[in-house]
């Protein structure tokens, strides 16, 4: 349990820096790609900002627990284990969620694709870290 929490915490801090840092830079470099977020579907009064920024830790703890349960299934070099872990997460979790999101909400395909790739990237980073921290 201690290992799950510790590796979740470390992965959370790293994902927080990488993802929000990347998002901050991405918005400034490619503003056109983010114009569709000026959409009433997205919260706009700031009362859920804390939840938004907690996401890196929520996904890290969830993936840390998942890794601890099924890490025996991922074999080989730690980078390869991380990649496979990310792929499994993307197929099992992200794909169905993104599918229903695109089918039910008035958002663009590009937006959903970017969320899919963002989640896949997060899971690969987390998986690679777990392969080192909790082999």
């Amino acid at each position, binding site marked *: 349990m201690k290992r799950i929490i510790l590796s979740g915490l470390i992965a959370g801090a790293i994902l927080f820096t990488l993802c929000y840092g990347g998002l*901050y830079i991405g*918005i400034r470099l490619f503003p056109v790609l983010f114009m569709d977020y000026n959409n009433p579907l997205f919260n706009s009064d700031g009362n859920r900002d804390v939840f*938004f920024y907690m996401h890196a830790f929520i996904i890290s703890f969830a993936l840390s627990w998942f890794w601890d349960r099924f890490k025996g299934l991922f074999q080989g070099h730690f980078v390869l284990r991380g990649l496979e872990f990310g792929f499994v997460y993307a197929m099992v979790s992200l794909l169905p969620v993104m599918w229903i999101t695109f089918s039910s909400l008035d958002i663009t395909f590009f937006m959903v694709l970017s969320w899919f790739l963002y989640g896949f990237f997060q899971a690969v980073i987390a998986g690679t870290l777990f392969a080192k921290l909790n082999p």
Partner: protein
Amino acid sequence: MNSSSGPLIRPSLLLLLILLPSFAFKPSHADPVKWILTKECTLKVNGSTNINKFSCIVPEYVQPDTLICYKENKNGPLKISGSMALDVQKFDCKHAVMTNDLRKTLKAKVYPKIIIKFLNLSKYPDLYNREEAIKGAVTIELAGIVKHFEVDYKYTMTGNGNLKLIGTKQVNFSDFNISPPRKLGGMIKTNNELNVEFVLNIKTLN
């Protein structure tokens, strides 16, 4: 003698008492002019976020209203009574998603109208001296909040002889207790300032 002249005086006195108030309260030299606001009136709002600019317009005014101007003298300030009420739902930002977002921000479902009430003008538009700046006071009611503003006007004549009065004013979302929208944890932020421009297309009736 007194008793016979009494009944003759009384009707005259009564008439005087009835007519006197109407002379007493008539504004001196006030010359009311009716301005009919035609459907060519528009309202434009320009704003920006940290990633883009937006320009949203109510392209027409489907319920013509009348403003009444009281000209005290030719070059002096004049009082105006009347207002225009525009539908927030009619805003069009040429980008469906942004249009919906602006309507939500302006609380269109709860407060469906923007009401601009005209109070005065610094002088009557002189069509032979169009370079002259005119100022005027208005109140703007938006999202249930009424605010008083001084507006700068430009004016011109249209081809069909109507007066076109263009008022501009920078306002803030916060003037109307509206928080500028922020998305993705504040990474995309709308700036507080909005440039409002309303075009009044006026048919003058004397």
